[in-house]
């Protein structure tokens, strides 16, 4: 059964902390892994990862994929209260399926 598992389920940190969110997957015919940030409304796209070991970076956020160990991490450095959100990981497959994890709820307190 295809699945995507995110951990932790929720996390509370202080502003300025660095956090690492995890996403592991077991799917048939992996194609890509995507990270989304969801605040009150719809998820917004952060990164798409297709190759192992190549870090994608956008400001204080970065992500990397390990296709051998079947996981990805999303790092956020110097967290701000605006980073508070649910972070969703999704995996696409060759059968054109898309599987979402349950998300990690990040709360950044001042």
């Amino acid at each position, binding site marked *: 059964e295809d699945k995507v598992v995110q951990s932790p389920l929720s996390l509370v940190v202080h502003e300025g902390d660095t956090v690492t969110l995890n996403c592991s997957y077991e799917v048939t015919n992996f*194609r890509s892994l*995507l990270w989304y940030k969801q605040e009150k409304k719809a998820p917004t*796209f952060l990164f798409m990862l297709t190759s192992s070991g190549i870090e994608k970076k956008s400001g204080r956020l970065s992500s990397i994929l390990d296709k051998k160990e079947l996981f990805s991490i999303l790092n956020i450095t110097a967290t701000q209260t605006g980073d508070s959100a649910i972070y*969703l990981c999704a995996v696409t497959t060759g059968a054109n399926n898309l599987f979402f994890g349950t998300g990690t709820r990040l709360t950044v307190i001042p």
Partner: protein
Amino acid sequence: EADIYQTPRYLVIGTGKKITLECSQTMGHDKMYWYQQDPGMELHLIHYSYGVNSTEKGDLSSESTVSRIRTEHFPLTLESARPSHTSQYLCASRKQGGAYNSPLHFGNGTRLTVT
């Protein structure tokens, strides 16, 4: 800036009413999806479409139906709304094809409350 639009943003209706949630995208994407999400919970796929006249049920059993008569339009209909349908409904689309599947673009969602 959103290229995928959902209306209405909020809807409160009584039990037994028929409703249609609208979703349109201007990106020419072939693939479109409807997800249901309760507050703070995971996304559940309820319907998807790979193109005109193609519709499939998703992982979560749903009493809703969809249609895809035009590429840009993917409405979701509830024939008889019930309180158990209270949820947020997210529409999404992505581009067909390529070696690596493209990211999903989401609409802003419709928050439905059935009283």
